């Protein structure tokens, strides 16, 4: 009898202790969760609500208008162009970025002298804030003093272009103005410039994430495959890629997010110009929502960025389920 009471008491004591621990645990979590709730979740729902109402800086209490903002966007040529540019910008950047990043990861996997210094130098595009380095690019693309044009002349690349250009395309003429290429003055070339900066900024990131994956593959497995006669390509596609797939996907999704939602590069390099040829959704949303004060149209524009986020959320939830199993 006494023993039973004692054990029952210790059980309830343990329960009380667990309950208290839980309480303390959630208390410790509270500041972070509240912060995120107040300044990420609420603004997100605010954006949703703006997008189905008619709200501007001067008229904050605009009423419900349904999907009018979205249909207005689709009949807006600048929006359509921005949407198209965002897709092109993202796909082209990501593909080049993946190729350059993968090659670099394999290079960094090798053992050679001065690896740490090399890593520091190659990561500079990623570690220095892009709002600062973009200035150097703008200066390199300058219409009068472009160092790239100077290099092109000195290395006789433009002379070469004059020879082979006509065989390639008639539009090569666009390249050869007397001052050299007008990097940011022509739509297609400006888009190329924006993509170049994006790739320059992000390939080091892709490489280090991939490198982290590659170093997690036990070398014995690779050696065994090599002894069995698997070619480097087979080893990569059939063994390494499946093993590091989760990391690859994470790296890829991060790169997509960084590119789709990026405002800084386009805003500071071209402002979306010339004639909206490089305008993307985030910059357009800024022009509409902040510069013109049309909060509803701006919010509706940014919501076109959410499908990508949704994809990410799904991926992580799947990861979570795998972990629980």
């Amino acid at each position, binding site marked *: 009898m006494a023993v039973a009471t004692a054990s029952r008491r210790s059980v309830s004591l343990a329960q009380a202790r667990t309950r208290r621990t*839980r309480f*303390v*645990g959630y208390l*410790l979590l509270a500041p*972070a969760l509240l*912060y*995120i709730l107040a*300044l*990420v979740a609420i*603004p*997100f729902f*605010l*954006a949703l609500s*703006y997008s189905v109402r008619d709200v501007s800086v001067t008229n904050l209490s605009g009423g419900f208008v349904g999907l009018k903002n979205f249909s207005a966007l689709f009949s807006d040529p600048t929006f359509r162009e921005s949407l198209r540019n965002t897709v092109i910008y993202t796909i082209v950047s990501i593909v080049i970025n993946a190729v350059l990043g993968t*090659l670099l990861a394999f290079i960094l996997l090798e053992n*050679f002298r001065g690896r740490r210094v090399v890593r520091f130098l190659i*990561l*500079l*595009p990623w*570690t*220095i*804030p892009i*709002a*600062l*380095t973009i*200035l*150097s690019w703008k*200066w*390199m693309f300058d219409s009068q*003093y472009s160092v790239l044009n*100077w290099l092109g002349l000195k290395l006789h690349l433009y002379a070469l272009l004059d020879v082979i250009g006509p065989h390639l395309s008639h539009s090569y003429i666009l390249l050869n103005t007397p001052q050299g290429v007008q990097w940011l003055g022509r739509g297609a070339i400006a888009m190329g410039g924006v993509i170049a900066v994006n790739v*320059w900024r992000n390939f*080091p990131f892709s490489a*280090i*994430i991939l490198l*982290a*994956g590659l170093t997690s593959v036990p070398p014995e497995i690779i050696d065994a495959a090599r002894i069995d006669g698997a070619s480097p390509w087979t080893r990569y596609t059939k063994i390494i890629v499946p093993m590091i797939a*989760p990391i690859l996907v*994470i790296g890829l999704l*991060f790169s997509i*997010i960084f590119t789709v939602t*990026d*405002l*800084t590069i386009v*805003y*500071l390099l071209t402002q979306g110009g010339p004639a909206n040829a490089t305008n993307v959704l*985030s910059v357009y*949303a800024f022009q509409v*929502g*902040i510069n013109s004060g049309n*909060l509803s149209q701006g*919010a509706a524009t*940014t*919501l076109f*960025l959410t499908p990508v986020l949704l994809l990410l*959320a799904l991926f*992580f939830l799947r*990861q*979570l389920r795998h972990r*629980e199993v």
Partner: protein
Amino acid sequence: MATRTLLRAPAHAARTHARLNRRKITNRTLLYLGVAVYIIIAVFPIYWMVLTAFKSNADLYNPRNFRLWFNLAPTFTHVAYLFQKTNFATWLVNTYIISFFTVIVTLLAAVPAGYALGRMRLPGGDTLAIAIFLTYLVPSSLLFIPLSRIVTSLHLQNSIWALVLVYPTITIPFCTWLMMGFFKTVPLELEEAAEIDGCTRFQAVRHVVLPLSRAGILSVMMFAFTLAMQDFIYALTFVTSSKAKPVTLGVVTDLIRGDIFYWGELMAGALIVGLPVAILYNLFLDDFISGITSGAFK
């Protein structure tokens, strides 16, 4: 026949050896060539920045000059101009104040949250951890429009405090995730031993767990600082008066007057701010990578 084979064997081996050696040398050459190409791509814009920052205007804007090196003596006029004729010093101070408070707020929120998620096995803890990590991926370009209203209604527009308020939304999720990882590496037994020795849980955390997680806390501080420095969109949206700008915004907006670009000053400003960030970031890079990739493994 047998002797001939035997005699030939060493020669054959030597030839194979030489071929392997040659292949190794080719591979090495290719490797260094690849490294060189990557370094040139990565570093050239930075090199161009350094060069411009210290070139005199007479040197910069003379089209006949050799552009990849100094033709006239290097100069500090651009740096001096920044500090004497612009608000550069104010922007630097603003950035340090903003960063300081961002770091404090981040620590206050992320360290306890990381502890709770990493060590307390709360019901629903894993889901919360994933949810917090997901908010790291909610981009600022999705939130800047509604946040601009929130900032205005709090009367924080054109103030550095708007950024102190908002930057922790970028830093808390990632830093919580990082701290969680660090706390997991401290053995639970140590904490339990301290409790058995008569410490309260709080004392055990303070005297045992936190000292052991010092590297993690330091790393979180660095990231709160560098992640906040990477922002541009929030500063651009919330702050328009020059006196309240952080340095990344001030440099790009105030040193460009209409069509006139002060390239020397722009590059000098970018360099002074950017290089220290790059060095800090690099020191803690391994923690950053493990923070990102731990979303994939486990």
